[in-house]
């Protein structure tokens, strides 16, 4: 095909699909599977893998046609880690068998994914992970502890970075796997967050057996594979085309409109300043999306995620000041196990607290500043004491 189809073409194609697959008359999962098989799930993915090899922005026309017909979606909030991180990594590094096995149930939400990266001793310094994977016949035996693992309690699969060679410098001794969370050696324990609930977990891996067929990328190449995941994670958190006033700015703007009695000149000025920043961030994300039409994201995603975090925090803090007395109240501290990651829902107090995580999860804002300074601006890095030392000899 020499010319990509127009948005109108895609709308027509989506309607054609809907005519043959009436969402009202079909089982939700069956509908989603059919949508995947028709190449309408993520149109920028290759044919046969839920896509049609088309520019990413054409997805919008499909989604709008589906939404207008009242079709079910795949509940992206529930499967954000799969969609935003695992899928692009599987696409980039997976074998044909792996792509065929994992992408469809990932997209339909039949299999939830989690991210087994961070450890108690390795957060920002992800390359320092200590979880060991040792070769054993046609597979690997994995032992270690992961932490802050969002949605591990819902997950069927985890993308895992483990150390396969402790004798080389830390970036070189890592390998990337998909870990079956139903393996008897996987133990998931809730970790309660400052919001009161436990969206994340500690995950203990004890003699977990991972077949070599579940390795993504080469042995020892885990760092490079993980970079793909992280770059995509940052785009997933901070990026994405969205209409004006979506997200936190929309919530706070609504509060402002609904509460004339709460308004003050000082808050008004701050709100408008943040509105402009939010619009700038939105347009930047849109621009990144256009650049990304093909290929993998670069450091721009880090910039988007960085901007997103500080905006959410400032806006949610302002909302509490705007609400005054209501801002002193909280909806519920009860320990719960949510089935999705929720940045905006619930009350203003929750939003304020949850936003604090935005500058930590997916790479802290300090690490993102370093990435921008070093990879984009080419500024010299910090003096490193850990680059050329075997992992096992590193200071801890």
């Amino acid at each position, binding site marked *: 095909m020499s010319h990509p189809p127009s948005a109108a073409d895609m709308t027509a194609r989506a309607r054609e699909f809907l005519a043959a697959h009436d969402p009202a008359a079909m089982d939700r999962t069956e509908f989603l599977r059919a949508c995947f098989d028709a190449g309408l799930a993520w149109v920028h993915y290759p044919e046969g893998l839920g896509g049609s090899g088309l520019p990413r922005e054409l997805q919008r026309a499909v989604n709008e046609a589906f939404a207008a017909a009242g079709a079910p979606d795949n509940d992206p909030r529930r499967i954000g880690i799969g969609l935003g991180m695992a899928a692009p990594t599987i696409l980039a590094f997976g074998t044909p068998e792996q792509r065929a096995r994992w992408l469809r149930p990932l997209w339909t939400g039949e299999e939830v994914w989690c991210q087994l990266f961070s450890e108690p001793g390795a957060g920002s310094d992800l390359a320092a992970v200590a979880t060991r994977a040792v070769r054993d016949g046609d597979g690997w035996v994995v032992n270690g502890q992961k932490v802050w693992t969002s949605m591990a309690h819902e997950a069927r699969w985890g993308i895992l970075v483990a150390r396969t060679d402790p004798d080389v410098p830390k970036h070189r001794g890592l390998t990337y796997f998909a870990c079956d969370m139903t393996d008897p050696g996987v133990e998931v324990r809730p970790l309660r967050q400052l919001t009161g609930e436990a969206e994340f977990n500690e995950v203990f891996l004890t003699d977990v057996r991972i077949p070599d067929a579940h390795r993504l990328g080469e042995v020892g190449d885990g760092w490079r594979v993980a970079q793909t995941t992280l770059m995509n994670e940052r785009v997933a958190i901070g990026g994405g085309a969205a209409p004006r006033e979506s997200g936190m700015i929309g919530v706070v703007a609504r509060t402002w409109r609904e509460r004339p009695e709460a308004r003050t000149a000082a808050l008004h000025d701050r709100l408008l300043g943040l509105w402009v920043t939010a619009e700038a961030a939105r347009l930047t994300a849109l621009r990144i999306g256009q650049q990304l039409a093909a290929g993998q994201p670069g450091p721009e995603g880090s910039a988007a995620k960085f901007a997103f975090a500080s905006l959410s925090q400032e806006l949610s803090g302002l909302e509490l000041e705007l609400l005054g007395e209501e801002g002193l109240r909280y909806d*519920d501290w009860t320990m719960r196990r949510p089935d999705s990651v929720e940045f905006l829902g619930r009350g203003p107090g929750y939003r304020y607290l949850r936003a604090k995580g935005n500058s930590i999860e997916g790479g802290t804002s300090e690490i993102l500043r370093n990435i921008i300074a070093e990879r984009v601006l080419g500024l010299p890095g910090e003096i490193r004491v850990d680059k050329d030392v075997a992992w096992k000899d590193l200071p801890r």
Partner: protein
Amino acid sequence: MNADLLYGEDEDQLRAAVRELLADRAPWPAVLARTESADPYDLDLWRALAGDVGCAGLLVPEELGGAGATLREAAVVAEETGRAVAPVPFLGSAVTATALLLALPGTEEMLRELAEGRSTAALAVPFTTPPHAEFPGTVTADGDRLTGRITSVADALPADVLLVPAGGALYAVAGADTTRTPVTSLDMTRALCDIDLDGAPGRPLATGDAARDALARALSCGAAVLASEQLGLAERCLEITVEYVKGRYQFGRPVGSYQGLKHRLAELWVAITQARAVARYAASCAAGDDAETTADTAVAVAVAQAHCSVVAVRAAEECVQMHGGIGFTWEHPAHLYLKRAKSTALAHGTPGRHRTDLAALIDLAPA
């Protein structure tokens, strides 16, 4: 004469006694555990603070069984309760309610009971009420019977006596004669409640200007001392964070060695030293040390609240951020500080509200 912005020997001793008691009786895991118990206020601890250390009667004259001290000493205690996010009604009872009663005649017996720790009191206004608020009007008086609702009141849950503004007058109401509904509060260590009065019997304390002046005085004292609570909290957050970043290694180095953190902590320290100066100044002015500083109380309190609120929130937010994932968990004290800090920034007026008040006081009219 310039206000004394330092701490005296007596204040150092008072601080040491309070800190020791709080370290022993209110370590943060105990404070955290209590937030989810049926008794959000630690009244045993309060009795020890009130009785053994004499915190309840600091502001009460000696002849009424108090310590005859001033708001300066009360501010020192608040620094410590802020450091410990202690679940005691010090601010509400020993400062705000006591200041109100001290401004009114005929309250000797109530003050004596408060000073001796035999009862606690709370001013029944929303915790957000700023010093120069209009006289509250949500409760009406029919003779001495009071009816109405007051929401989000601090330190009222455990109070024996509620000091209720109604119909332009002030009344004392037995807590037991009202319905107090606990509020799920953002600051879990200072549980708020909503108060319903349904023909509750009130003892009139004052009307007209006397009532208005006493209320303004009480709120001003509460706001001044709250600034010191914020100071103590900010200081503790800085300490915890500095300690953590010294010992947490990433990339083979303590994370505190990275200038991205180090410089922010240095700036926070600068802001906290300023917070100490403005909080001390506000306490001195509100203490009524001399005529000149007393006349500057309104400015001093507005400055203290506008500054210390911001510093406390920043300190707590940095504490969370610089701890990384662990700072986002329930099992680390950072969130207790964050929730207290943000709530105190709304209490007795937001920083924005205080800046607006200031505009009129210092002749910088808005555009």
